[in-house]
């Protein structure tokens, strides 16, 4: 078993609990933006894809890495964009819209 595994397991379990506690407080009103935002955060795999696309390696791994960069980065850009668009629409009754 690699040494890093146990440390990563600690991180995973703690992050899972933090996630559970934080996300369970999100109002059902915002469940769609929640999913869009977590998609955008999950797109952080792009950092791994960048390293694979750009490091010294085979042409195959560079090509797979580049496709992964495009796929993950589209989620990052699109996810933040649509979350913000949705959240801007949520208004209270006090404020009048034009």
């Amino acid at each position: 078993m690699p040494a890093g595994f146990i440390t990563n397991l600690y991180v995973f379990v703690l992050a899972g609990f933090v996630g559970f506690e934080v996300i369970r407080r999100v109002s059902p009103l915002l469940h769609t933006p929640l999913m869009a935002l977590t998609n955008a955060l999950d797109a952080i795999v792009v950092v791994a894809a960048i390293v694979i696309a750009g490091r010294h390696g085979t042409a195959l791994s560079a090509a797979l890495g580049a496709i992964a960069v495009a796929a993950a980065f589209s989620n990052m850009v699109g996810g933040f964009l649509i979350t913000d668009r949705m959240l801007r629409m949520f208004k209270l009754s006090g404020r009048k819209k034009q």
Partner: protein
Amino acid sequence: MMPPTAQYLTDFAYIAAIALFILSLKWLSSPATARHGVLSGEIGAAIAVVTTLFNPELVQFKWILIALLVGTMIGIRLGLVHMTAVPQRTAMSHAFGALAAALIGISEYYMRIPHISKFEMTEIALEVIIGSLSFTGSLIAAGKLQEILPQRPITYKGQNYVSLSVLGAAVVIALILILHPTRVYFFPFMVLISLIFGVLLVTPIGGADMPTVISLLNSYVGFTAALLGFVLNIKVLVVAGALDGSSGFILSVIMCKAMNRSFTNVMFGAFGKLQVSAAAEKEERTVRTASAEEAAAILGAANTVIVVPGYGMAVAQAQHKVRELYDALSKKGVDVKFGIHPVAGRMPGHMNVLLAEADIPYDRLIDMETANSEMPQTDVALIIGANDVTNPAAKTEEGSPIYGMPIIEVDNARTVMVIKRSLSPGFAGIDNGLYYMGKTLMLFGDAKAFVGDIVRELSGGAHV
């Protein structure tokens, strides 16, 4: 390997990103602070990406920059879709997330071979299998939501056995690879079979079950990213994946409860469709109908109204007319609220977004529990495009397929109005006894047109 300074720098940047990601989700808890959450997430992601671009291991940038550019263009395109298309956009983004994670896992395998331990191989195999099946599964879900593929469940005899055998084959190949990681020729088959399993997993699922499926795929994609973090030993992936995975998991549980499905039923993807009750011919029952004029008179005279919208409202694109109705009634001093069932719409929270887009203030949108506690003091419950989520059979008829499913108890309101095209049953094929109750008025017609007619009657009356 990276020089130590560069490694520390990367680690600090990723730790900052992790903190900002958690804050991002924390701020999302209320609409008032939610947009800070987006900003915080963006800053965290930007810090992580920019730091990675300075990684000294990188030797070529051309393809990275091209890929970032392509990703930006696709992202903007998918970020600007219409709000009714958000469920299929979400499914597409699950597909992209799964694709990225699976490709990275595949690339790692070929990079590490032949120096790969059994343990590493286990992690990679698991990651690639879940990533691949989530990729095709999400594509099928997106196709169904976009209505490129049929929305109805596609089933055949012995389906579960076929699907499980395919999954079994992928697992067997994975086991062979774990025991003999250098048998490179097995690897593409494992990927291919996992891709096929993803198709088989989602094809049998109908449109109305999509909120659960999307949540479940969301959770799969999150856990794939976390597994990738284990494979590559990058903790920011472990954390982001755990957050995304637990979010999808929580939403899946909420959707399950709202549909009264057991959790194991969902975890193994054995959604099946609800059994259509073998109901014999029903005796002729009478319904009371009303015109737009009568409906407007009753609504205008009410003190409190709860509107219960369903996916049918979105299909009819009636949400803007519904806003006009809200405005007209509010002007007359009627207290109008919207009671939203958790599975209304095609993904969790979808109905709230559609109503918010139509400029209905979010403090008017109430959840199922609140709606049910206010229902007995409500003069009129107006149902637009919803069916099964209001069916009293869920509470009273033990034999009914939807028995036990939590519903919005509109039958407790003083008057019930249902806008519906015809008396045809909902997706579960179950007759709705609500329509035959003495206090129920059926308003037959297209949701958008009918609501428009009511608004016209209301504003006509206001002029005098």
